[in-house]
């Protein structure tokens, strides 16, 4: 991925840029409709659009288990949880819209395979136990990033993240309940849970991205508070919170090379294959094509409905 610094647009008024950067440095936030450098707008849209895309595509692995949920309570809880994800997408596309993109365009880009969404949602949810892993670990991973970004500089995004984090917390609690039932269940249930954890481990480690290169681009993202914490910081946060849960229930951490280094107050882990992450990032993951095709099929099926609504609105 090209991380080169986007050239400053000639239209970026240096006085306005200086004022803008000073405001951010003093901890201020930017509201919708205010002046911003084009590069800032570009990066903010990219971040928020990918987040919105991920919420929509994130619904797909879990929704497969709604019809199969093994109790009425789980059926309700899972439906509500996936509903929340779709709702988050709605909130996030609206934020991206305030930066100048049309929701229709962003959605078309996504379903036509021209946009990106987080790696974890390109993988299969093979068993009911995958639901527990997704709700605890995948949502837990997302929480690290989302929590940090609550102090990002774009106010509409920060506001929406507050609400998203509040709801995501419920999801993790619900996930822990499913996790507990399986971890404390029959030998088959425990085995199913361990197997799911094994399959999801690498995508989880990948989720936070490669350790950041020191570059002018990264520096600017941090200075502008579009990036708040480094990839490695977030990954370590995630491991600190979630590895103990695995151990508490007597399950095995899938990476035999993972261990806590007391002196350095961090986890060391087996370096994952970053090429896999790059492939998935190009929509070449195990389930990418299938899920995009499914979403695209519905998008096309609904074209007449969109048209009818447009005509109705214009009447």
């Amino acid at each position: 991925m090209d991380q080169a610094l986007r050239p400053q647009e000639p239209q970026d008024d240096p006085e306005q840029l200086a004022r803008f950067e000073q405001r951010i440095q003093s901890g201020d936030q930017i509201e919708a409709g205010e002046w911003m450098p084009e590069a800032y707008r570009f990066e903010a849209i990219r971040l928020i659009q990918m987040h919105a895309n991920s919420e929509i595509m994130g619904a797909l692995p879990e929704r497969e288990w709604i019809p199969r949920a093994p109790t009425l309570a789980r059926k309700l809880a899972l439906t509500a949880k996936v509903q929340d994800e779709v709702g988050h997408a709605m909130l996030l596309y609206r934020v991206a819209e305030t930066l100048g993109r049309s929701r229709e365009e962003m959605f078309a880009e996504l379903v036509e395979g021209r946009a990106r969404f987080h790696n974890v949602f390109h993988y299969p949810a093979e068993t009911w136990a995958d639901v527990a892993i997704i709700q605890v670990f995948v949502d837990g991973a997302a929480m690290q990033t989302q929590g940090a970004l609550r102090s990002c500089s774009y106010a509409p995004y920060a506001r929406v993240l507050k609400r998203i984090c509040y709801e995501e917390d419920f999801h993790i609690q619900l996930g822990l309940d499913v996790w507990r039932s399986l971890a404390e269940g029959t030998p088959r249930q425990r085995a199913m849970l361990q197997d799911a954890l094994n399959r999801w481990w690498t995508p989880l480690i990948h989720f936070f991205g490669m350790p950041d290169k020191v570059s002018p681009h990264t520096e600017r993202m941090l200075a502008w508070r579009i990036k708040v914490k480094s990839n490695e910081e977030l990954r370590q946060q995630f491991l600190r919170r979630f590895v103990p849960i695995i151990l508490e229930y007597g399950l095995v951490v899938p990476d035999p090379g993972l261990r806590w280094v007391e002196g350095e107050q961090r986890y060391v882990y087996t370096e994952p294959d970053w090429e896999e992450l790059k492939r998935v990032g190009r929509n070449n993951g195990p389930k990418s094509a299938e899920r995009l095709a499914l979403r695209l099929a519905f998008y096309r099926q609904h074209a007449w409905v969109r048209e009818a609504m447009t005509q109705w609105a214009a009447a």
Partner: protein
Amino acid sequence: MGGGVTVGAEVWERRLDTPRDVWAVFLQARTRDPHVHVGDVHAPDAEMALVLAKENYARRDPCVTLWVVRAAEIHTTTQDAAEMFEPAIDKSYRFGGSYRRQQQVYRSAWRLSHRDEDQ
């Protein structure tokens, strides 16, 4: 653009720059509460906006009534004009007693008026 009064080079008010099908949603949590902006929905018309707002914004939060209005109809003062709102001189003549005491009374009165027992 509105009347277009400008002082210096800066515009002090404008319409929100939103697509026509975006509706701002205002939610009244309990009777006697004010309606508060909780977010927006896309909808072809007001009735559909209300129908959609119910489940998109009131499925967890308490709600008695909802308002919707096209976001494009909303006018806003600009960030540039924010300075105008900051008091420059002593305006304590507006408040009974100290400013701090006034804030305390205001806040607690608001809380009292929204106590559940009153509903």
